[in-house]
């Protein structure tokens, strides 16, 4: 289980293969949301709660997780899951709703260093949401829209609040929405790439988290980092997969 700020994700592993995924909005009760996500994933896996040998939780609300007797840090889970999919992964960038982080790991998938964005939403998913609202564009249209732009407008995304007023004044100046959208992703990618540079950009670089599903952001990040980041299928389930892989290890070790 990955109890994130916006959604809870759950992954079921059988013989080290993913057989079920489920998710639910965290809302005000992450514990119930986690139960719902687990149920959905078990349904997909065609299994019962009692079939599960071991639960492990991660995510910002991991302490509220049902069933799980142990937890793993989000950074540890990131590293584990990314190397499961891409054995050559050495740098993992995880951009979620409220937080962005970068993790460095070794060939065993063990994290060796990490950085987290500095208590500011301008480098995370909620920023795109706020900006989409200001632009009056649907969230999922933001990425494709930005890809149409040849250039980016100038915005100074020092924070969500000021970013929003920046965007409003650009709209007033009648700048094309596509260029504004691209500027938003560029600004975000800028912040995240300087964070990753503090850690070192060691290939292969993997991008995960909910924001990895946005083609606009991926394209901006590729340009800012000057590398092509790899995005796994279901990037938003990466944390849950990492927790499940940890559960496999702990199960072997006799821990429940």
């Amino acid at each position: 289980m990955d109890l994130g700020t916006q959604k809870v994700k759950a992954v079921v592993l059988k013989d080290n293969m993913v057989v079920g995924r489920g998710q639910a909005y965290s809302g005000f009760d992450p514990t119930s949301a986690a139960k719902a996500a687990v149920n959905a994933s078990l349904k997909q896996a065609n299994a019962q709660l009692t079939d599960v040998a071991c639960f492990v939780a991660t995510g910002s609300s991991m302490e509220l997780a049902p069933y799980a007797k142990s937890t793993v840090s989000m950074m540890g889970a990131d590293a584990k899951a990314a190397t499961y999919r891409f054995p050559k992964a050495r740098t993992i960038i995880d951009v979620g709703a409220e937080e962005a982080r970068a993790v460095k790991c070794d060939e065993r998938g063990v994290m060796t260093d990490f950085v987290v964005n500095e208590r500011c939403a301008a480098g995370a998913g909620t920023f795109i949401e706020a900006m989409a609202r200001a632009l009056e564009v649907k969230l999922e249209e933001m990425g494709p829209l930005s890809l149409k732009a040849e250039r980016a407008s100038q915005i100074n995304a020092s924070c969500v609040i000021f970013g929003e007023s920046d965007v409003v004044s650009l709209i007033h100046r009648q700048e094309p929405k596509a260029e504004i959208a691209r500027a938003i992703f560029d600004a975000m990618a800028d912040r995240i790439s300087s964070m990753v540079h503090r850690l070192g950009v060691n290939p292969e670089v993997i991008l995960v988290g909910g924001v990895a599903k946005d083609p606009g952001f991926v394209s901006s990040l590729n340009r800012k980092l000057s590398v092509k980041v790899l995005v796994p299928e279901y990037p938003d389930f990466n944390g849950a997969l990492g927790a499940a892989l940890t559960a496999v290890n702990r199960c072997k070790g006799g821990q429940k």
Partner: protein
Amino acid sequence: MTIEKPERKYTPEISAKEIQELRKTIRSSSEKVIADNIARMKKADPKRPYSMLYFDEIADLFGKRQQEIEAEKAKGKKVIGYTCLFAPTELILAADAIPVRVNSGWFDAAKLGDRVVPVEVCPVLRSTIGAKMIELSPFLEQSDALISILTCDGMTKFGDIMSDYKPVWRMSVPRIKDESHSMRFWYDEIKLIKNQIEKFTGNKITKGKLKEAILETQRATRAFRRLQELRKGSPVITGRDAMLVNQTYLWDDKKRWTEKVEALCKELENRAQRHDWVCPPDTPRVMLTGTPMFWPDSWKLPNLVEEANPKGIIVADELCSGERILNDPVGVDEWTIDDMLNAIGQRHLMASTCPCFTSEDGNQDRLNWLLNKIKENNVQGVIYYVIRGCILYAMEYTRIKKALDKINIPVYYLDTEYTREDVGQMKTRVEAFLEMLSVQVDI
């Protein structure tokens, strides 16, 4: 004839009523934090040494020690506050005055400081200014004069603001310490401050008095080092207990403090013989470096480290609120006034690893301190603690990080503020870091 109140150059006038109300609220929340910290430290070590009770008592900022100093003042003793370890406390002791360090560890007071200086200013200073505005800090209030050391930019201007309230004596620091004229300059500063202290207290700092003050400090250093020695092996004391012992030296009676530390060490040495560890010996061993952590609110990070899941144990630090207080002794060759003053100057300036210094090779002394402690205390990971506004520590990070990468010691840069709101986020990071240190078990 009406007496004119001196005009305040910096600080706003606050009504007596507001001062009283704010002081009452912040003081009562501080008393809770102190009690809570101590309760957590007790919980962390069910067999906590009996001697710690004494330090708990001294840690009550509004308790026994405040009353003692008040009684001494009533008998005519002067109290001299200082803001930084460069202040030659031996001279204060030799003039029969009481030295107290006055940096504030109260988060709530920082918000008040915002009325005088912008939020970009380091919160230690904002909080100390705030504490002064509402007369919160017993030791700052009791100080008859302040020694302000011009280290970083914030510290330099801090003295100006404090001069709204008290006589402030400034000591200028040469920022390249290993040039030949630096020590001459600093020696002159020491002589000037000696005259200042003598004039203010009316007590002459004689050869005999100064020697006694130095010997007393040397005894404290020996006791302190005995305690540090005990942190090198399997853990017999929590990091928080050791940090509290270290920090109480800043306001306690020096002679009594030394005796109590000796008693504590005796208990701990027995404990080590019984192999009665405070936590499993394979608990990740953590060192703290960076901005000072002042009692009581800045126990935020030490509490997190030692209560995390997985747990860590703090075995060393490089903090001017911790081991730097007494790590280096005053080394005197000849007991002449000149030689003693020189030795005092050496101890307070040359031994310091403060990031305000630079040299041809940068602040190599700080790096050496870290490398030595990492080796001697078997440190497995370093938390680099920076509170917003502390530019010097922030700017030294990359160098330290590179050097520690070379010896495969993980270091985590943790930035925070004088606030309780980010405890949740800090916890996530600290736990991930500790997990990283102990992850080998999981593979």
